[in-house]
């Protein structure tokens, strides 16, 4: 069964199909690199959790730092945020502001927190 479409995506109809494919082959190589980096990051996260850094807070910091690096790779390359339109950056700036506010309110509430909540 043929799945040849009635029309093809814009760039391939402009007579620049070869260039377009080459452009995407470059992207594909980058995606694979990001994929390997994410796998590597996952393994490092697990191994780092077994290293006693002296204080649990350091272990938490290391794990979250690696997670932030992985998140940057996914958002930046798989979600194309490193080369996105201003409109998207605007939406994300608002999101970051409110997310930071949410976390700040959490920290603000820290002093009023009912200590020693029963966890068992």
């Amino acid at each position, binding site marked *: 069964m043929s*799945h040849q479409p009635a029309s093809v995506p814009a760039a391939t109809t402009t007579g620049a199909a070869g260039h377009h494919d080459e452009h995407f082959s470059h992207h594909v190589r980058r995606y694979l690199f990001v994929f390997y980096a994410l796998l590597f990051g996952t393994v490092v*996260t697990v191994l780092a959790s077994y290293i006693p850094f002296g204080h649990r807070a350091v272990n938490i910091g290391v794990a979250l730092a690696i997670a932030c690096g992985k998140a940057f790779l996914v958002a930046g390359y798989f979600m194309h945020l490193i080369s996105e339109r201003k409109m998207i950056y605007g939406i994300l700036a608002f*999101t970051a502001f409110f997310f930071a506010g*949410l976390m700040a309110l959490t920290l603000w509430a820290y002093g009023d927190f009912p200590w020693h909540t029963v966890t068992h």
Partner: protein
Amino acid sequence: MDIPFTVQPRQDTGLYNAKVGIWLFLASEVMLFGALFSSYILLRVGSIEGYWPHGWLNIPVGTANTLVLITSSITTVMAWASCKMNQFGKFKFYHACTILLAMTFVGIKSYEYHDKFTHYSIHLTNGKIADGHIVSKSKDFNLVNKTGEIEIHGHEVDLAGKEGDALQNELKKIYDLRSPEGRNVQHTELKYEAAQIDSMKTYGPWQNTYTAIYFTLTGLHALHVIGGALVIGFLWGPGSKMWKTDPERFTNRVEISGLFWHFVDLVWIFLFPVLYLL
């Protein structure tokens, strides 16, 4: 009626409408998961020393699931790139992989949930706590009428009369399974009559605040995985007919569903270390 700007970008935004829509939706999703993450932080910092669980989740299984989700992210982006390169066959292959990987993720998560729902914490009338997975339960087992018996594969701890370091070391046998005390616990078959049991409960969301936030976060995430897989399944199956009539719009649909899928992966990137490792 034609929906405007499904393919051509609007002049003011420079984007087709669905892309603005999905990013606004993802922004709301950030706040949803952010609220739950902040709840996690508050619950954790407010817990009594020694009572916040460590090592309750199987790290190799969680790592495997993380790798599954990361792999599904690359197959998703490759499916979109295949559409862009006019390779519909490859699109079908990559998204078939995505759907299979999504099902694998949910399957592994179900296995983990099952493990928690068969794991019991039993408070005995002698003050000890028995902890382990159920082996068998007699048909007439009834905690209210005190009839029958239950057998578990686990161990006992005795917190009564202990304080200071002695209490912390005993607590680690239950709460810190990555500590030497927790790792070296010997598990055996233990049988109890109902009359010996004061109360018992599984490691479901009702066990403590850790399991409550664990099931809430991972359950909500799993719902997102299922929802995303359904959309991708539609685009792979009946929805793929659009490729013949309007390939650019179809490619945009693949991109939008892909953005959602990558977000789901992104959430898991933080959930995994927070819940499994720290």
